[in-house]
């Protein structure tokens, strides 16, 4: 097949097709519309509010941890057990119940149908169930704060045997609730994930070929596939651990003496659990990262008024990263004891995955190159993402190599690395996308002054937290320790740094209140946004109403004539051409009356 460069107006206008009436579920009551809703947009908001709510709990937990590390023995309510519980719950909530749920359940639900030009998800009822399963999982998890013994304190990796043995906080009720909550979450996610994947495959409007999809959809689509294939590993390990805990099998439990008593367990393999856990755990990193990659591409392109650099390469790198993410899991297990050739294999795959990732970074930067950059708040966060992601990614290359990784294992260096790459970087994108799409969701702009203040404190504050943490890790300070005691290789100045980090954490945390206040204030008092305040090309900005009504588009679905990145096209009237604009010298001259 050969292509001639014909510019963007070679496609003839396509008349509206006879599309069969879509059977949409039409709610009659307030409860049907906003509570038991089957509209993907409402479900998205339900997901987002729940995820952000539970994320705030995890934010407070991180404060409590940092208070202990920064000012040891000053707070009587933090003892070693509660400290470990804070660490565990903070990690689990942030990774699964906030980031996964927000990117896929929140942004996925809101953006997929609108961006591909569909009226709703393909299975709205299942989609609704997905949210209620998620909410139930969150409630189970929160319930573990109130049961005897409190939540589990085994670390978010839940490694057996310690996670289910007495001596670990929450080894009775806490861990049971955690495992059941995870299983419920996975069932709920599978329902949602089926929707996201099948909607992208089946519900694209006319003209929306795969290669005309915005990268946001690509990122969420691939992340959903990863999640659908990886979560079963966590599901199996949760079920097997529940068997070990409740029925007395020995899948993971070796023969063990606990508190002077020989237990009935024997022969089980804790490393088997680690394999299963990380078989889920590593793709999970990309389940969070790929939607962020996709969304940030769209933010950069829109606010730099330039087509994304290397669109095809961006799509393929998303696909390749997704595939490779399944063959790197054991780089989390270098110190669990493995065949050196095994370590060599996983170090190699880990370094290979850096190639498509680096391609994406170059393309983002090249998209900015000579762009007409508008430093709107979403753009600030998108550029902030590039910084934090590069820093977190570079330390990942350190940790991917066995010989460098082993001495750094379980130090604060690891904590700093994964927070930069999969906590701060995706959160930058989350914030950027909220500033970007809030006008579409509510019809009002977020306040810019508050937004810029929020960005700068969060961005610089994150560096104040995590740069010194790398250094502390180099000195050998281990993670998950309640107190350092008298350790000869840790200089006293580490304590000063720890105090500084804690102060930064408190400040960054408090500033999020400005953001929440902005969300509420702007909902009532914000400047009306109009339909397309950022002058973007993608379909969600071309809806007849803002916020889009039930059914998303007017009586007819849009027809797509071009890709999502027609910014600053030479010779065009404006510096953007919406995807659904028919070809012609100007839209008005060709469109039928």
């Amino acid at each position, binding site marked *: 097949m050969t292509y001639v460069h014909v510019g963007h107006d070679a496609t003839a206008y396509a008349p509206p097709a006879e599309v069969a009436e879509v059977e949409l579920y039409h709610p009659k009551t307030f409860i049907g519309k906003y509570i038991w809703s089957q509209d993907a947009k409402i479900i998205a908001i339900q997901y987002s509010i729940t995820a952000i709510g539970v994320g705030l709990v995890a934010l407070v937990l991180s404060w409590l941890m940092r208070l202990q590390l920064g000012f040891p023995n000053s707070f009587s309510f933090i003892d070693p057990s509660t400290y470990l519980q804070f660490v565990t719950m903070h990690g689990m909530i942030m990774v699964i119940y906030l980031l996964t749920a927000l990117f896929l359940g929140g942004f996925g639900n809101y953006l997929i149908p609108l961006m591909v030009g569909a009226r709703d998800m393909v*299975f709205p009822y299942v989609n609704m169930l997905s949210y209620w399963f998620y909410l139930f999982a969150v409630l189970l998890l929160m319930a573990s704060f109130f049961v005897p013994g409190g939540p589990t304190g085994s670390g978010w990796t839940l490694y057996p045997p310690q996670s289910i043995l007495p001596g670990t906080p929450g080894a009775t009720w806490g861990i049971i609730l955690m495992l059941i909550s995870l299983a419920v979450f996975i069932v709920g996610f599978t329902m949602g994930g*089926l929707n996201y994947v099948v909607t992208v495959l089946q519900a694209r409007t006319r003209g929306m*070929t795969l290669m005309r999809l915005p990268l946001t959809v690509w990122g969420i689509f691939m992340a959903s596939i990863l999640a659908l*294939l990886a979560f079963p*590993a966590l599901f199996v390990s949760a079920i097997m651990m529940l068997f070990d805990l409740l029925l007395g099998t020995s899948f993971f439990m070796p023969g063990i003496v606990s508190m002077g008593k020989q237990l009935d367990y024997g022969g089980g393999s804790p490393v088997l659990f680690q394999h299963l856990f990380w078989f889920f755990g590593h793709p999970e990193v990309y389940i969070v990262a790929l939607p962020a990659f996709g969304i940030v591409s769209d933010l950069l392109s829109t606010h730099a008024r330039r087509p994304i650099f290397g669109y095809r390469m961006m799509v393929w790198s998303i696909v390749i990263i997704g595939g490779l993410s399944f063959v790197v899991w054991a780089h989390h297990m270098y110190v669990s004891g493995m065949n050196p050739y095994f370590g060599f294999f996983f170090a190699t795959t880990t370094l290979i995955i850096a190639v498509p990732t680096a391609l994406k970074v170059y393309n983002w930067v090249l998209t900015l190159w000579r762009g007409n950059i508008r430093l709107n708040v979403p753009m600030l966060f998108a550029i902030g993402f590039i910084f934090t992601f590069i820093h977190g990614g570079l330390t990942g290359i350190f940790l991917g190599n066995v010989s460098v990784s082993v001495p750094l294992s379980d130090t604060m260096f690891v904590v700093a690395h994964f927070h930069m790459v999969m906590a701060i970087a995706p959160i930058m994108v989350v914030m950027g996308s909220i500033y970007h799409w809030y006008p579409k969701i509510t019809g009002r702009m977020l306040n810019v002054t508050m937004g810029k203040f929020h960005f700068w404190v969060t961005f610089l504050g994150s560096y104040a937290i995590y740069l010194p943490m790398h250094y502390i890790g180099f000195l050998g300070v281990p993670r998950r320790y309640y107190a350092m005691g008298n350790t000869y290789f840790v200089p006293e100045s580490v304590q000063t740094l720890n105090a500084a980090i804690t102060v930064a954490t408190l400040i960054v945390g408090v500033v999020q209140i400005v953001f929440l206040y902005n969300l509420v204030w702007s909902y009532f008092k914000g400047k009306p946004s109009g339909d397309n305040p950022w002058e973007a090309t993608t379909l969600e900005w071309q809806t007849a109403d803002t916020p889009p009504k039930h059914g998303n588009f007017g009586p007819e679905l849009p027809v797509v004539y071009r890709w999502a990145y027609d910014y600053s096209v030479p010779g065009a009237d404006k510096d953007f051409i919406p995807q659904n604009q028919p070809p012609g010298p100007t839209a008005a001259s060709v469109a039928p009356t």
Partner: protein
Amino acid sequence: MTTTLLFLAVIMAVVIWWLVRQTLNVKPWVEQRPWVGDRGGEGLSLPPVMVGLGVFLAVATSLFALSISAYFMRRDGADWRPLAQPMVLWFNTAALVLGSVFFQTACNAAKSGRVGGVRLGLLAGGVCTLVFLAGQLWAWQHLNTAGHFLTANPANAFFYMLTALHGLHLLGGLWVWAKTTIKLQRGAAVHEVRLSVELCTVYWHFLLVVWLVLFGLLLLT
């Protein structure tokens, strides 16, 4: 984890093959292709729920592949003593094969619009499945009375867990089967249930294959 990796390689190969066919040469920035075809959108020509079932089967395959990987890894333990398979499992296997055959006849009947054939095939298929599940419970009972408790040995634990996992998937299928059968008994026309019958048939074939793999695994090890 080799099993799982193999399975994943197959899935990723399918995804990438499909994407290559769709997109390798496409230059979206100069693309001339107007919309083609008379359908309302750009999806595959299958009904969405069939695609949904396909994706779900990939998830279920991942679940079973991971369980089998765990089975192989745990089998290396010194305390592993293979489990003697009760004879009833052969009978159960036959019942499930018959069930799958009956579903296929129901599916064929639905395609040619014979309501009697659909009704008969669905009923017989459902009964065979129930016989299979009852037989599995009987096998559990048999093993338990023979002293092969869940906790006695990892091989036993895997047997109970894998059969339970497989049985639960069948129960889920039976729910759709029951809904379809009731609809049919209440006088629904063939074309109204045709899609459900097709979905059930695909699902039953899938679970038959899973069972054959699991059973083969239990026999060989």
